């Protein structure tokens, strides 16, 4: 393997990234970094735009050769907000080829350890959102939720709500990335960059009553003698409160 001072560019898609990494691994290149096209060149490296064709077989190949656990791992890293996620995926794949599933205990290697931490972070945030997401009922009975997760967990989260609310139509909006997911009782559809405006008069008449009941329950269930704001914030970070009905006004 040879280390080069090049930053390799890809188009931002998962498939394109994997194809690029495949080429780099084949040619035994360890890149200085991998970035989305448009990345500003700096003094210490040069940007390289390799000609790569999207390889449709690459995902089945990774799953077949390395297993779905590793594939899920790199997909989680791809969804993270980590600045060096592409490089972490590169290293994760590099060591996976040699160590297979044992890569998950290869914490002694710093690059792998970072990747494992990112995987855990994304998984944890996905799990938290299963609980913290709040739906409002619209007049047409569609359930609507907004949130702004740190990592792009929406593609993972929809799998949970497909099972949980399988007989409801629902719409989830990631405000930070401007992505929408809509479930129509059969499939989930994604859009980005849409300009949809959910107006207050589209919200069902029952909604206010239910929010009020929930607020009453929430305010009652805490034991005053045990009040512990710090503990609450550890479990429910302030950055999410804006979207959590019962605490948004605290």
């Amino acid at each position, binding site marked *: 393997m040879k280390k080069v001072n090049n930053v390799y560019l890809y188009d931002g898609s998962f498939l394109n990234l994997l194809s690029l990494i495949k080429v780099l691994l084949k040619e035994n290149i360890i890149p200085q970094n991998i970035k989305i096209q448009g990345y500003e060149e700096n003094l210490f490296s040069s940007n390289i735009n390799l000609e790569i064709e999207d390889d449709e077989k690459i995902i089945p190949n990774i799953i077949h050769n390395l297993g779905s656990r590793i594939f899920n791992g790199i997909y989680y890293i791809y969804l993270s907000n980590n600045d060096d996620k592409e490089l972490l995926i590169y290293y994760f794949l590099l060591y996976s080829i040699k160590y297979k599933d044992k890569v998950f205990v290869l914490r*002694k290697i710093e690059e792998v350890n970072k990747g494992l931490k990112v995987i855990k972070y994304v998984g944890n945030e996905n799990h938290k959102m299963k609980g913290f997401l709040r739906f409002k009922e619209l007049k047409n009975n569609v*359930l609507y939720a907004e949130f702004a997760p740190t990592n792009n967990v929406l593609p993972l989260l929809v799998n949970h709500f497909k099972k*949980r*609310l*399988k007989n409801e139509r629902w719409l989830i909006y990631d405000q930070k990335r401007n992505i929408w997911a809509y479930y129509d009782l059969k499939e989930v559809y994604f859009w980005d960059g849409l300009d949809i405006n959910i107006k207050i008069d589209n919200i069902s008449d029952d909604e206010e009553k239910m929010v009020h009941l929930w607020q009453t329950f929430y305010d009652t*269930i805490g034991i005053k*003698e045990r009040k*512990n704001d710090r503990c*609450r914030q550890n479990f429910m970070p302030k950055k999410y409160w804006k979207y959590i009905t019962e605490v948004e006004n605290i």
Partner: protein
Amino acid sequence: MTLEEKLQILADSAKYDASCSSSGSKRTGQMGCAAVSGICHSFASDGRCISLLKILLTNICIFDCKYCLNRKSNNIKRAIFTPEEICEITLNFYRRNYIEGLFLSSGIVKSADYTMNLLIETIYSLRNKYHFSGYIHAKAIPGASPYLVKKLGSLVDRMSANVELATENGLKLLAPNKNSQSVQKIMAYVKENKTKNFVPAGQSTQMIIGASKESDLDILTKSSYLYDNYQLKRVFYSAYIAVNQDKLLPNLKIPPLVRENRLYQADWLLRFYNFKVADILSWQKPNFNLLLDPKCEYALNHLELFPKEINTCSYNDLLKIPGIGVTSAKRIYASRKMFALSFKDLPKMGVVLKRAQYFITCQGKYFQDRSFYRRDYLEHNLVLLENAKETRKVEQLSLF
């Protein structure tokens, strides 16, 4: 009385029950599903997780347990939900993703069987009329007929009955209407009949800490007995909060939260770390040290067993080291087959090195001169470590 007033009264009466976990069930169906891991939906102002809609069906009660807010002799507002009302709130909260399901308990109206029937009617309606397949945890009423226990158990994910006090004497004194036999009868029944269609998520129970004279040894012995004999998933500990004035009750201004925390730590040691009660408590020393966690205390009392060599000691020995949890023990166990581990690798495995360093060697090396491996020195440092956390907390508070 409005629905909101009822909810306020009956949630307020239910809040002292510590149990709220929603794990262990794989139920699926038309309206919702359970999640094996359990999901916390919110956290209350006391930092406890809110997973289930925790309410009583009614706070009317014919019992007069001294420690209980809902005791017969208390002059408080009483309310009773209709099954329809509970279904409406549960389903609407569930759709909006406020909750993972329902936790339904009740005061005892008329008789145990009568109350059981009310619970069953409500949950039957949720399950069969509304096809609700989210998580339900119901309290079984001690003394109810076996066929009712069977019926309730076949509708819920978890069923439990509370022990409340660890000893028979405590129970006689503070809860004269209760007896431990009727609670254990329910536990035995659940244990015998547990299947994927009958209480699939298992059973739990709760004990009140600090309302009576039981020692930590009494409480933990009871827990251990319950885990071994009834395969309980959890025992919850609830620091006593002085809701009633009574000459039989201690006059506590602040609930014994540190003691409760020590009991939870010890409970974890019993369930996941292969400890026995006798390892951590004895009749000469029946209560926990409030300054040190039980695992550190154990290690200090058994210095002859330490320091352990990280690269060669057994998995079971790894679990005994303060600062190493189940996850980090597993990681160490898997990694050391590939590489020899040194001190700098351990934080990557999730080890809390500032605690663990006193009790381990890595490739034969101790982190400082061996002459410091003395009880007085280690204890001093570990207590300081715990207290540093406390001072931080105090500073935080004094800012406001």
